[in-house]
């Protein structure tokens, strides 16, 4: 699956969607889910939690390993994808869409500029 052109990417393999009214969506990339294998549990953050960039906000657990989710942007969690509680493998099936993890209200939109674009991330994964 190709990396969506309008998303931003971190070196820890998270993606960030374009900001809408200062809110972005965070997920893990298709590359990350493929490396992890079958996701059996997603440890979601709680709405209202605040994090600084590079904090661990939760974890994705596969049949093989637990992998922390690091937010590449600072802000407050405004929504989490509760559907992952029942169907954690949505992260495998649709990493860039229905497998999103949470929505974050940005403290500082300029942090987005520090992230990779799709071309740079595609190169990073090689």
């Amino acid at each position, binding site marked *: 699956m190709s990396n969506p052109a309008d998303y931003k990417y971190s070196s820890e393999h998270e993606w960030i969607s374009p900001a809408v009214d200062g809110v972005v969506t965070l997920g893990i990339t298709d590359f990350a889910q493929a490396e992890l294998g079958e996701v059996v549990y997603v*440890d979601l953050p709680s709405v209202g939690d605040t994090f600084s960039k590079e904090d661990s906000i939760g974890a994705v657990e596969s*049949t093989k390993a637990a992998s922390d989710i690091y937010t590449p942007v600072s802000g407050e969690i405004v929504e989490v994808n509760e559907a992952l509680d029942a169907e954690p493998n949505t992260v495998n099936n649709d990493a860039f869409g229905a497998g999103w993890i949470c929505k974050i209200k940005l403290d500082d939109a300029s942090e987005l500029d520090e992230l990779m674009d799709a071309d740079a991330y595609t190169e990073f994964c090689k």
Partner: protein
Amino acid sequence: MNADETIKSTPLCDKHVALGAKMVPFAGWNMPVQYSGILAEHHAVRNACGVFDISHMGQFLVSGEGATEWLNRMFTNNLNKLVDGMGQYSMMLNEKGGVIDDLIIYRLGKDDFFVVVNASMIDEDYAWLTARKPEGISLVNKSDAYVGLAIQGPECEAVFAKMCPGVELPVRNGILQFEADGDACVVCRTGYTGENGFEFFCPAEQGVKWFEKSIESGALPCGLGARDSLRLEMCYSLNGSDLSPEKTPLEAGLSWCCDLTKDFIGVEVLREQKAAGRPTALVAIEYTGKGAPPRHGYEVQLPDGTPLGEICSGVLSPSLGKGIAMLYVPAAHSKIGTEVNVVVRGKSVPAVIIKKPFLKK
């Protein structure tokens, strides 16, 4: 193993890669962790049939007059209970009563045995036994001579009938040596999954052929991932995780394979523990609430926060859909029904000590 040791590959390695397996290092071997997916492979073994490469495991042949008496001093179970063609689960202990290795030993004939040991312990077991072997008894390490396939699941008998037409599988815990397709083969009616199954050994150079035959006969290639979740659902111990040189078989809940009426290395410690009570016990815990899968090393506490121990083996059970784990706790806290918490990244997940195994069949 030491970091500078080179990793070994079984004769089936290229075939695993060709089948799309993800390979990982395990016990010094480059082994498939999964092919189609751990969950699919797990369910295939529970509902149909799977095949695992177990060529990394070790095989010793022990023979010669007095072999029975000698091995009865080396191993915990009583070989005098075995008739020709039958095997038993047993353990080899150190002087402190701790577990060096768990194994299966088959009696081929009088004073003639086939022993299957863990991959990571082949060299240590062989050295331990060699150092204690009386003259006149032959101990041969045949580990590199065989490819081993564990074929497991309710449809295993049909798979075997296609692989080896006209050959009848031995009874449970039995062993049969036979010739098939020109090869000298061995089949043992045992397994590590809790399902009907057998372990098939053939000459190493014919391994790929027999692996392919098993797949053509209906077995799905399965990796170490599914092997671990399958065995843990049955509470079968994994040496190195659930068994250690610091824990006795009584603490591991394996007194049933230790005959304390005979003399073997470590028996005094076991007799003392039996009389005075074991200090710790390997218990099985099951999640009662939702939470991240339990994993090796996670701390387990009483509800008041008192630490009980660390998880030896844990997994999100594919069959039961909840977290399951085993760990050693002080014997005073080992009662079935004891409520505990598993600490996962700072969060407490409630769990309870249950009667083994997790999967009641």
